[in-house]
């Protein structure tokens, strides 16, 4: 547990103190992020319309990976967790992990995976 690292010295004032860091990304980062998000979304929708790909085993994993990348991009750049105090990262990631484990556990218990792939059980 990083009990000591949580204490930033008090020297930092104003913006940093309020959790807004100075090395904040700017317009050029923001629009690039938006373009990346749009492109990934376009690819997601595009592969949805390729029947052979939809039928393949790669379909679901690639969708999951793409949406995870989008998720992480928004969280890191737009919610500026990448630049912010690591306390915030902890406050978000720990619940997120518990939430994901819970979803996976529930789906497993309800036979979601065995229904669909027949392989996991």
């Amino acid at each position, binding site marked *: *547990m990083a*009990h*000591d690292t*949580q*204490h930033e010295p*008090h020297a930092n004032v104003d913006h940093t103190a309020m959790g807004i860091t100075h090395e904040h990304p700017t317009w050029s980062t923001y629009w690039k992020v938006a373009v990346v998000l749009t492109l990934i979304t376009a690819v997601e929708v595009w592969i949805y319309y390729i029947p052979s790909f939809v039928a393949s085993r790669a379909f679901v994993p690639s969708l999951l990976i793409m949406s995870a990348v989008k998720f992480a991009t928004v969280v890191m750049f737009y919610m500026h967790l990448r630049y912010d105090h690591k*306390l915030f990262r902890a406050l978000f990631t*720990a*619940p997120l992990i*518990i*939430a994901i*484990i*819970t979803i996976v*556990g*529930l789906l*497993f*218990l*309800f036979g979601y995976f065995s229904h669909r792939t027949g392989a996991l*059980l």
Partner: protein
Amino acid sequence: MATTATAPAYAPTESYVGESGIWSWLTTVDHKRIGTLYLFTSLFFFLVGGVEAGMIRAQLAGPNKDLFSADLYNQLFTMHGTTMIFLGVMPLSAAFFNYLIPLQIGARDVAFPRLNAFSYWVFLLGGIFMNFSWIIGAAPNGGWFGYAPLTTMQYSAGLNIDFWVIGLQILGVSSLAAAFNFITTVINMRAPGMNLMRMPMFTWNAFIVQFLLVLAFPVITIALVFLQFDRFFGTNFYTMAAGADPLLWQHLFWIFGHPEVYILILPAFGLVSEIIPTFSRKPIFGYPVMVYATMLIAFLGFGVWAHHMFAVGMGPIGDTVFGVTTMLIAIPTGVKIFNWIFTMWGGSLRFTTAMKFAIGLVALFTIGGISGVMHASPPADLQQTDTYFVVAHFHYVLFGGSMMGIFGGIYYYYPKMTGRLLSEKLGSWHFWLMFIGMNLTFFPMHFSGLMGMPRRIYTYDAGQGWELFNKLSTYGTGILAVGLLIFVWNFFRSYSTGEIAGIVPWGAPTLEWSIPSPPPEYNFARIPKVTSRLPLWDLTAPRLTREVPHTEAGDKRLDVDVASKHTATGHPNPTANAPRQGVEAGMHIERATGRTARELGIPMPNPTIKPLICALGMTIMFTGLLFIHVNRMPLALATMIGGALLMTLSLYAWVLTPLEDAH
């Protein structure tokens, strides 16, 4: 600055008394007053739950008794469980969170004082709402875990379950709002030098419980939303005919339910972790291990829920995983038990009432933990589940654990809250009656349970070997009740006639005892600077804290400059050459000055009625749902819209008013 360790003669009149009219209570945002409100309200509900328990035991005293109908019996045990958990133990813990967290970390209030008031009012209104069902004769009757589809309209058409669903939603808002508040308070309001690893164990436990609340409550919220939608809007979440899965509710409920049991026990663990070191005059054994064990319990607590569902047949993988995780969780729990025992080992023990209750927790919780591990094994659990054996288990952990800890906490902190001690003599009676009564009530349930007596039956036939055990249980309940009455008497009488406590009645090491009792509204006239985990023992008994890590000379973390000849406030430090760290950092015991925050120039939040109005609006909004089921659609809509408006408007008014006067 006073650096002397000798407590000044205590003069209650000198301490800050503040306004005392009813309006001052309705508008208070002071965490201590809110804590007091929580304490009184939840003790009241605890007594109500106790009366319900007494009625249940009266019915079961012998075979084929018919004091109550089966239906009324269902309402009794449902309301008993719901009341004890959501209106008794949880808010009793919240009373201590409120009162103690700011004091223990050296803060003047919580991070969001008005949100804190809001949490209390929502809790109070939710409790009233839930119990209002008695008045119209439709108390909840689906068990404290309200299994759907039993609780859907098809099987429970009355208003009973509506009260339960809506009541729990209201109470959930209270717990969540409080949890965000306390998380922020602990992270951000600590006094200089109060590193996380210097926080008192109670605050640590409380802190971790807030995360459990924040992560567990949304799940039951959603489970209840589904039930609400099914009941009010005809959705199909729990409709088997539409293909719904009867296990959905069970899983969602227990994903909440198991963390919930840690929400119920960890605050009590925190209290005894304060009591035992004080009365052993030793720092707690293995402090960091205690902290990590608590975190581990909380984390694992999210991975064991389905041990409540072994009987539904989850298959070998599910059963094994949940059996194993449940057994694993007993390890950090056992670590805590051993740490308390090692803390007492070789200490100079003082058997005050608080200490007796603390030791009672260690002993009785261990028994409950052992039966817990027993039903962690799926084959064993198939025999035990839904019998009185499980009832014995959770009463050992909840009564023997949570309630013993909370009573210990009340004896220990009563002098902090009132300036007076509870009578030790009555306390001793209270403890022993409760200890004997509790064991007499719940130990026999192990036997009746293993002999096959199911839980939640309103009566039973003679000749199954259950009579003796049930009779013993009912006698035990009588003894418990006497003990409880003695406590109530003690609680109210000592308020005016109790012995004056003095500033450090127990010789405890933590910050809350460095200020007058009851504390002035601003708590600390000067925010303390903390250089070790046991600041007061640094002052009064440095011998005891030699092993404890301290801020070293020259260590400038957090402004606590122990090497300086000046205290942080700029006064020459009279003891600059003395070796006592706490003193050098400006740590001291404050006398009661009787001066108000205004006189001292300390900005304090203004009292406000808005949180109460907001809570009222929310409760009215939820109440509107009830009218749907008595076919008063326009009335329902009017109530809901009116309540929502009241809530929103008062919320805006609250949020747009500054917390305190500009300064």
